[in-house]
């Protein structure tokens, strides 16, 4: 018994193949979803991968949020389907108002690719249940607009409700408020994450295999459900 996990390809998606590879690596069934297709083809979970969706010359993710596939993703997320937005996917989730806050230009104004240390803050989400709270994971970040911002009330709410999923440690790569690297929705099924766990599934091609737990966590949740 396994689960089918869809990865959306927008025309400017770049890390979609990597996300599909990660899904396959943990034994789930990967399925590529096309941005113009409003059907989710009976997937059990969805990954919105990194990239530049529709070029992102406007605000990142601002156009993607209106694509046919996103209408289905938004509805499914509201119904409880696990959704992981990585980097550009996180930006799309914020634009779609599935997650609060916004990702803005890095505080140093440069794109930065870095092997980043994170602390996992919440293991109650569909995507992080396999981690221990407080675990250190080294996962690449690579973005130009990864600086998480929200008003103080929202930040306090996220902290109070334990909805900060991961935090940058040993130095912030982008100036995010309260070093936030990832957050979740109230229900814990939707997670947005700036770092790229799909690039940390094998030490041959990434800095570590620390990211694989995002994918094993959701598979376990789906299979045991």
């Amino acid at each position, binding site marked *: 018994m396994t689960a089918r996990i869809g990865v959306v390809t927008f025309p400017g998606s770049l890390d979609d*193949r990597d996300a599909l590879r990660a899904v396959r690596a943990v034994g789930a069934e990967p399925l590529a979803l096309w941005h113009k297709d409003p059907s989710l083809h009976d997937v059990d979970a969805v990954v919105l991968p990194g990239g530049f969706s529709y070029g992102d010359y406007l605000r990142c993710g601002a156009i993607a949020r209106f694509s046919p596939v996103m209408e289905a993703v938004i509805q499914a997320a509201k119904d409880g389907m696990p959704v992981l937005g990585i980097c550009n996917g996180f930006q799309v989730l914020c634009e779609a108002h599935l997650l609060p806050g916004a990702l803005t230009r890095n505080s140093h104004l440069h794109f930065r690719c870095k092997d980043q240390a994170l602390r996992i803050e919440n293991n109650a989400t569909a995507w992080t249940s396999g981690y221990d709270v407080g675990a250190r994971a080294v996962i690449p970040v690579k973005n130009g607009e990864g600086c998480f911002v929200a008003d103080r009330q929202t930040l306090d709410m996220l902290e109070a409700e334990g909805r900060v999923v991961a935090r940058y440690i040993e130095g912030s790569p982008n100036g995010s408020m309260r070093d936030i690297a990832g957050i979740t929705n109230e229900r814990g099924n939707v997670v947005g994450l700036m770092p790229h766990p799909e690039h940390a599934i094998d030490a041959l091609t990434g800095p570590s295999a620390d990211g694989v737990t995002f994918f094993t966590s959701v598979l376990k949740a789906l299979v045991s459900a």
Partner: protein
Amino acid sequence: MSAHIDTVTHAAATPDAELPFAELGLKDDEYARIRDILGRRPTSCELAMYSVMWSEHCSYKSSRKHLRQFGEKVPPEAKDILLVGMGENAGVVDVGQGFAVTFKAESHNHPSYVEPYQGAATGVGGIVRDILTMGARPIGVMDSLRFGPADAHDTHRVLPGVVAGIGGYGNCLGLPNVGGEVGFDETYLGNPLVNALCVGVMRTDGIKLATAPGPGNKVILFGARTGGDGIGGASVLASATFEAEGERKRPAVQVGDPFAEKVLIECCLEIFAEDLVAGIQDLGAAGLSCATSELASAGTGGMRVVLDTVPLRDPTLAPEEILMSESQERMCAVVEPAKVQRFMEICGKWDVTATVIGEVTDTGRLEIFWRDELVVDVPPRTVAHEGPVYDRPIARPADLDALNADDANALPRPSSGEELRATLLRLVGSSNLADKSWITDQYDRYVLGGTALAMPDDAGVLRVDDATELGIALALDGNGRYTRLDPYAGAQLALAEAYRNVAAAGARPLAVTDCLNFGSPEDPEVMWQFTEAIRGIADGCLALGVPVTGGNVSFYNQTGSTPINPTPVVGVLGVIDDVARRRAIGFDLDGAVIYQLGETRAEFGGSEWAHVAHGHLGGRPPRVDLDAERALAKVLVTGATEALIGAAHDLSDGGLAQALVESCLRGGRGARISLPGGLDSFVALFSESSARAVVAVSPSNAAAFEKLAADQGVPLARIGVTGGDSLEVDGLFAVGVDELRATSSAVLSGLFD
């Protein structure tokens, strides 16, 4: 309206009408030859085409005579691996298991000086399309960059823009940037070098060529719409020397749209997968003029194009401008009529604009129509392949003897432990040797998930496909100072360094591409440097058994009458059967034995030490020994394959000292070194003798490794052991790894943040 169109009929009727051929960069005799070919004066559209296609940038008119050496001095290894040789968009190499690799480097120096961001961005875009055109999926990029002094005012205008442009374009295409080099020298202050390399992979049966066979086949232009950008770029920009004209030339630099190119890549790969094209060409320099004339002359010999059908971004463009436009992200395909519908469907899926603009004919003529009038009627070969060939005068530089006599070995040297320590830190903290992560962290090195090694390791290593452990390695190197002192040796040293870097990463060197950056070919001394460098590369490739698969020539790299140091940049491709056996430079284990391989002589001509400590350039570059390089590579590759070697790093700029520093920093641990006997400590640490490397070997493998080196006749010295938190040399001095890191990483961030 038709009265304003300079048709073929009109041209024949008005033989004495004056055309601005000189403003378009054509010489009197070149214009006369065009009139000869056509038997009349050219139309303005024809003149536009000839002027861009006969520019130095497109026609290689000064270099072609000399580039023939690459075809004449072909190593025997070529016949086993070379699937497509020089002359196509890029060479194709068989890497085994049914995979073929295509790679090429290209310069975008002048545009990057005028408009750093767009110049560098479109340089990446152009080389990626060259690789795509061969039928390959691009899987990685690298770049070789040279700027003026890091603290110079203009470097602060140029460098951040170039780096952001390379990142902005390459990151958005989803291509990992896995290596290259960055250098600083006064010689590049008014003329930076921006050389971009792309590598792609395909199945050996998937190669596509730039040809237009089959009368009746449709010519389809697809990708971005045509606009007014880059008009005359090829002739006006790339082939003229900079005076104080930067401002005026700005509109001639193209503007890039990486999202359009990303979509074009995916669209092309789907089209290739269904075998829908008979021939394909990208639109780069000289735009439609180049694509139509090259496709037609390589095919059945004729093509008919209706220029009115070209989708325009700017409807006011004149036909001459449409022909010359260098708008980016465009491709031109030749498609059988029965396959046009499916071709269009795939373009529709990706929202790529595609238009039938003409068809292949058997007339032997390239005929182009505008408003129902014939405005171009030429034999396409005369545009694309029969441009002028010059035999430029050559003269050995008058100052070379004096320069060679000014021996760097005679410069005052440090000797005490304290002086050597200070010298080491000064070099570590110099712009050329300092940590480059301020630059390279602006590039995505992880996308596509196949990166097994990237900068600051010696070579970029990429797995060619998920389904295999087969990998490729690439290194890109050049040294303008060595080449200034001796262009034949300097070019070979660049080749040897890239070859050594690939071997140090554990890959077997296979093939070569080059990007030749020189001053004006109209200067006989520059021409001498150029011919010597080509001779050096061709002879070197023959000796090392690695064929040249293609390359690029960039002339007119000078400001006023002062040319840059001649800078041939050489890229070497290697293959590694099991990508997990690649070797990084970092000392990643305690207690490993450190060996130095190769022979050290007192060689400081053109060295980083002479440059940093004395601002000196003189003497002779290090001696070239290609047999020694070949033997060293054998030891490095076998040592990696048999898992004897833990870490390996080539010795180049800054010598042994710099290599040890980099291996300590990369591995996060120190080393205790005792320098080999019989050599002055300064020479042992800072000489730049070639054909050398350091390796770290676990004690249990030491005997086997020593035997391997002995079997290949490679001199070996046991010089120390890894571990601790400082680099200690012989009781002479010690420097903490933290201090090394702080010194190295402070340089670029201090200057550019």
